[in-house]
């Protein structure tokens, strides 16, 4: 008969008869003191082991620490590379939190990533020559048609997408180099953002992040081609006066040909005013030409240009990111002294009219030289 081994037998061949008989022969008693000591010893031992287990294996190591080595090895060689690790993110599928781990998660399983408290974040997908667009920008959400689950990356700040890329690879770049003061003018846009949160987000060093498929990441192109920069539907604002694009916006190419300016403007240097979304994320930096605009500031999606005739503010409906990769130079065309004087006079007239009859201002102030298109040009190396 085959005995069920689950039962407890008085004696089985697997047991050592000699040991059992010796055990009976040893008349060692088990005193309460021994028992108490034994329990104490076992408890201490167990606690030590338990704490050791928790302490040393509680969490997988932060991938960022490992990535640091990789970052230092390849990132400095490529100023455009923005691939790294996204940390401390929460991943959500609908209302369910599916991941909260700082380092690793499956991007295919992620529904929504809330980027609150992270600061200004830009996204780009790896641009491949033969890739197809997989992501769209919807307000401040980046919707990606991932292979399995739609991925939404949510940020309280600007998002730009390089609309081409490897389907399950998203690169994210965070720039927390902005000062909080510069955002104060954007309260209406970010009124739901706690100030403290915003302030904490916009301080500290600059970091680079990326969402990658688990533990893989790729560098972006070591030197990727730069798409043209475009502003779509820009508006020009003179102090509190906003001039809609329908008034001043002219066909760019034709204007460029008809307006030579003080330096040669070639068609390839003039950026069309078509949608920025066609190019996705574009990193650029502003730099005044030697005979052009004096300074510029970026605040959120507004580009403020300090011209010789006043504070010109250009607002686009698309996102503007000012990054550290200073490859774009820009100028404001009315830079000759003759035009400046003319604009200054018209501006003064506008201000007077504006003070008297605000509704009249738009009709008159638009003559004040602000219909000139804004040109951008790549830096010539």
């Amino acid at each position, binding site marked *: *008969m*085959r*005995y*069920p*081994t*689950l*039962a*407890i*037998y*008085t*004696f*089985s*061949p*697997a*047991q*050592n*008869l000699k*040991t*059992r*008989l010796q*055990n*009976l022969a040893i*008349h060692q008693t088990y005193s309460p003191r*021994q*028992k108490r000591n034994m329990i104490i010893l*076992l408890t201490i031992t*167990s606690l030590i*082991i338990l704490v050791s287990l*928790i*302490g040393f*294996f*509680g969490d997988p190591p*932060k991938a*960022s620490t490992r990535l640091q080595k*990789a970052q230092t090895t*390849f990132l400095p060689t490529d*100023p455009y590379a923005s691939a790294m690790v996204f940390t401390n993110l929460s991943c959500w599928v609908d209302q369910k939190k599916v991941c909260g*781990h700082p380092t690793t998660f*499956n991007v295919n399983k992620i529904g929504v990533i809330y980027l609150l*408290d992270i600061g200004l974040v830009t996204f780009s997908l*790896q641009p*491949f*020559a033969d890739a197809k667009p997989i992501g769209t920008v919807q307000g401040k959400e980046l919707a990606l048609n991932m292979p399995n689950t739609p991925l939404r990356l949510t940020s309280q700040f600007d998002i730009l997408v390089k609309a081409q890329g490897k389907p399950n690879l998203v690169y994210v770049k965070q720039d927390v180099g902005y000062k909080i003061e510069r955002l104060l003018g954007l309260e209406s846009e970010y009124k739901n953002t706690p100030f403290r949160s915003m302030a904490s987000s916009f301080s500290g*060093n*600059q*970091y680079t992040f990326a969402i990658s*498929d*688990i*533990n893989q990441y790729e*560098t*972006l192109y070591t*030197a*990727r*081609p*730069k798409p043209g920069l475009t502003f779509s539907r820009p508006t020009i604002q003179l102090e509190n006066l906003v001039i809609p694009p329908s008034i001043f916006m002219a066909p760019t190419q034709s204007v460029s040909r008809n307006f030579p300016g003080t330096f040669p403007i070639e068609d390839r240097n003039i950026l069309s005013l078509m949608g920025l979304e066609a190019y996705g994320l574009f990193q650029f930096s502003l*730099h005044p030409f030697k005979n052009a605009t004096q300074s510029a500031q970026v605040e959120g999606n507004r580009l403020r240009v300090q011209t010789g005739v006043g504070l010109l503010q250009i607002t686009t409906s698309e996102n503007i990111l000012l*990054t*550290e990769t200073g*490859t774009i130079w820009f100028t404001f065309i009315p830079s000759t002294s003759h035009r400046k004087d003319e604009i200054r006079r018209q501006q003064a007239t506008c201000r007077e009219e504006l003070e008297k009859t605000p509704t009249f201002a738009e009709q008159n102030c638009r003559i004040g030289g602000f219909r000139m298109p804004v040109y951008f040009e790549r830096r010539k*190396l």
Partner: protein
Amino acid sequence: MNAGLGITLLYKLWLPMLAWAFLAWVLWFFVQNYGTRHPVFRYHALRALILLLPIGLLAVLLIPSPFSINRSANKVEITSLPIIVSPALSTPSLPAPVPPSPPQPNIQNLPPNFVWRSAIGWSILCLTALAIILGLIRFAQLFKEHYALSRLKDNVFTLPPDIEKALTHALEIPQNIVVTHTKSVETALTFGWPEAYIVLPTALITDAEALRLVTLHELCHIRHHDFLQQYLLRGLDAVFAINPMIRYLILHLEAERELVRDKEVACHPGVSPSIYATTLYKIATTQDNLRTTSYT
């Protein structure tokens, strides 16, 4: 599933399990060789070591590591290493822009540690799958054993009530105990919880003293709920089937348990250790044909 899950399993399951196996082996080595020779100590030490595995894994899973680095409550959990960004705006030595064509994807710079990380992750996943398969096989065996015991209940004969009462009265146990006998077994055994069965060899009934001692031994098992423990240990063995250390410890635990129960019987009033030893010897020598496949 992907490599990341494998990495998580590595840190949440496999590494703690390996650590437990190593520590358990070391502790058990010292207990065996340098500890007390009293079986009770070894028995409790083994129980603690075995229980430490599921409790420790649960703790690792549920309790955040107090020694984890780079942990903060709300702030962005970024390493403190500032990324070396591209040159500043005014820096004239900007990298030359790359001509627009031909745009070649450059993905060759995968760091080797990430390739390895991915490979390790997938390996861990495969290992986990193997562990699950082994566990399922072990669970199937457990259910088979359970079924065999339920069949054994149908092929036994109960003792007369007065004899049964006299035997079970030796220890006051609140559990319902059924003492039976059958010719199909050559050694006494017990199973069942909370209703316990003691199955005695029919040949043993004629030897009153042996019957009393053997029944006393089985009653000790029942009093300490050893069958329930046996069941749980088998379940644990199935869950961690891929870990040989737990089976090794369970084997030793079961052997030590018999020694502890022997000791308990020997210390019982009216029991002579020498007679009990003689009884054990008789039982052992009369079951040459008994070949169990089990731990006990």
